[in-house]
């Protein structure tokens, strides 16, 4: 026997575990978003960088504040607030006034997350709650897009960026025409489709050389970054797949009925925020179902609603509301899609 008495730790099996921790998962989401953020800065310059930094700071600050107020252990270090801030920043137009971005960040964490009890309990995707709030509060600013690849984008801000709190931002229309490389209209492909009936080439959409929100222009880059996360099993590929499937089927249906009036599925898939939202927003683990069938239903619902709102709603961008709606439907979807377990007996068998 050992010289000193042997101490035995008592606990029940399993004694070994192997799983990435929650902070590790969140950190990897940040890594996956970084290339997108870098591309956004390349496209939109200084303003995009400062905007994303502002939303992140606002989110992390709010999280820290509420941790302190509620006397809870600090959850700032789990990276989830950074993810929310980064996601939020990427869905905003590059010239979005910074103070409004800060409001969005505060709302995202305060109303989207802390109100429900923090990470793991949020019913909705926090970033989208923040964005929905400012969409209602500042409808003009959030639909004012500025041209990508403006000439002096790395040395000067977009004029609207530095608007003072509670002040109306400077109009950017005139500035936009000055700095744009070619004839810039300020309209996103979706707005062009909706209000002028012009369809942008899907190839341009795929590569991201179009107007749009900070992080959502290049479908190609989004898919690559998503694939990285999915390969590391930190993103459930089934959700984006189901969203895109739902959107493709729905838009194909309309395209089939009247190709001259409705846009093609490939336009729908690669335009606006759909790709970004499908890969990074709808796949928010906490607010989406866990059951295999539920995941499919959830994704299809998001895709379907997105197309319907785009075609028949008053807004140009729809995926945000589609996801929020599907988030709200998650408990319902789950309750109807519990998996069939191994060797489950049919109802009649159970009774006998």
């Amino acid at each position, binding site marked *: *026997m050992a010289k000193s008495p042997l*101490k*035995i730790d008592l606990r029940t*099996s399993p004694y070994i575990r192997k799983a990435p921790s929650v902070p590790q998962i969140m950190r990897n989401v940040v890594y996956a978003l970084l290339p997108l953020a870098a591309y956004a800065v390349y496209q939109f310059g200084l303003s995009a960088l400062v905007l994303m930094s502002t939303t992140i700071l606002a989110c992390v600050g709010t999280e820290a504040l509420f941790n302190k107020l509620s006397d809870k252990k600090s959850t700032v270090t789990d990276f989830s607030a950074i993810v929310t801030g980064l996601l939020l920043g990427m869905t905003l137009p590059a010239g979005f006034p910074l103070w409004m971005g800060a409001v969005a960040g505060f709302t995202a964490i305060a109303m989207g997350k802390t109100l429900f009890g923090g990470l793991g309990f949020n019913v909705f995707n926090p970033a989208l709650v923040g964005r929905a709030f400012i969409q209602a509060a500042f409808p003009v600013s959030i639909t004012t897009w500025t041209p990508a690849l403006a000439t002096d984008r790395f040395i000067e801000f977009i004029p609207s960026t530095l608007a003072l709190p509670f002040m109306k931002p400077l109009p950017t229309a005139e500035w936009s025409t000055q700095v744009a490389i070619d004839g810039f209209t300020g309209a996103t492909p979706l707005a062009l489709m909706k209000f002028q009936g012009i369809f942008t080439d899907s190839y341009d959409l795929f590569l991201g050389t179009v107007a749009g929100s900070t992080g959502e222009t290049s479908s190609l880059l989004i898919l690559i970054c998503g694939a990285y996360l999915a390969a590391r099993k930190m993103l459930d590929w089934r959700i984006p797949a189901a969203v895109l499937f739902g959107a493709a089927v729905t838009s194909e249906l309309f395209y089939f009925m009247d190709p001259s009036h409705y846009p093609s599925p490939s336009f729908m898939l690669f335009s606006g925020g759909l790709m970004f939202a499908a890969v990074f927003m709808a796949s928010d*683990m906490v607010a989406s179902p*866990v059951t295999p069938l539920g995941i499919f239903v959830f994704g299809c619902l998001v895709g379907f609603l997105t197309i319907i709102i785009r075609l028949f709603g008053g807004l140009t961008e729809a995926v945000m509301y589609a996801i929020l709606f599907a988030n709200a439907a998650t408990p319902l979807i789950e309750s109807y899609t519990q998996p069939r377990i191994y060797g489950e007996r049919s109802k009649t068998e159970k009774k006998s």
Partner: protein
Amino acid sequence: MNLFRLFNKKTFPHGIHPEEYKAETNKKPTRRLPFAPEIIVLLAQNIGKPAKAIVFKGQKVTRGEIIAEADGFMSVPIHAPVTGTVKAIDIVNSARGGKENAIIISTSPSSGQVISDANSPQNYLKLPREELIQAVKNTGIVGLGGAAFPTHVKMSIPKDRKIHTILVNGCECEPFLTTDHRVMLEKVEQLMLGIRIAMKCVDAPKTIIGIENNKLDVLEAITPHLPKDGSITAVAIKTKYPQGAEKMLAYSLLGIEIPSGGLPSEAGLAIFNVATLAEIGALLPKGQGLIERIITITGDDLKKTGNYLAPLGTPIRAILDYAGITGDEVELILGGPMMGTPVRSLDVPITKGTGGLLVLDKRATKQADILPCIKCTQCLQACPIRLNPSELGQLAAKRRYDVMEEDYHLNDCFECGACSYVCPSNIPLVQYFRIAKTLNRERHLQDG
């Protein structure tokens, strides 16, 4: 799930791939563990009723003679693991934490430890089915894979059920353990004999031996012994935890699901562990009883690791002394790291169901802070029964144990621990489920 089977033959959906740690012991041939000076024979070594002691204090016993007899159908006799003197029949600590009756034998140091030849060899192949099953019972054999379910009960198939295939479980999917691996290499002939006896007992025309494909040397060793008529076959299946669970094995080998809450016989199957059948093949023809078993002694902080033939009733303390433990704070586990039982006292003995003694120190994962469930679905993708551990875990936190049982199939969980293994929020899911099941059982008892 038929689509799954189309592309994934010889395995089951979900499950996990833990580090195996088997290389440390799987090449080491079985050696005999020295007899401990004192042997503690628990009377309850099997599922069902404990055996009844038929010896008295001070009585001299010979190795292999019956010292406790079966108490009814769900019980098996116990044979003396050593030659010696009964020191006491007393209450001792058991691995599960409570106290249990045991026969304590002082090993006789001068004895040659020759096995008693009181029982004569039997011409087992001439025996009718019922008597053959009785002969199986007389060997005191129970499921050696860990469950310790009396084998003769398993073999007594209800009249209205027909067994079409016997599945022999040679998966040994628990990390660290290598006893079944060694049995299959070292006792091939006994195993084949055991299989034939089992086929006669359950009246099955066919047997399939399922072996995880991390033990291909076993497959090579067994193949020459298989009969030409194809009634017994050996099949490699994917190495994945928990491949060795009865339900998973049935699905991997045949694509059959054992109905929820039912026995394998309901699906026309009888499933035995390789070590169980090998012991039957070794003991039954000689008319002997089960007095020792192979255990794997392995893990951290040990000077000697390997596979050892240990007399049943050898206390953990004696094994640790022999293996030379160097750590000062460890976790001691009977069985594997996924489903093993913690050892609460060093005086706990080896029983018929013990497959190994695992000492964990560095390689054990300490319980970290429990975070809220982020619904990442990893547990759903790990659960071999396709339960919803995420939802079950949240219900357990709210103590809604009744809902867990009624709506979320709690009782179908066989506690493999895959959900706890993969949880990024460190939620001890399977541990919660055990508590829930226990409390539900108590509640049902109170309700009558």
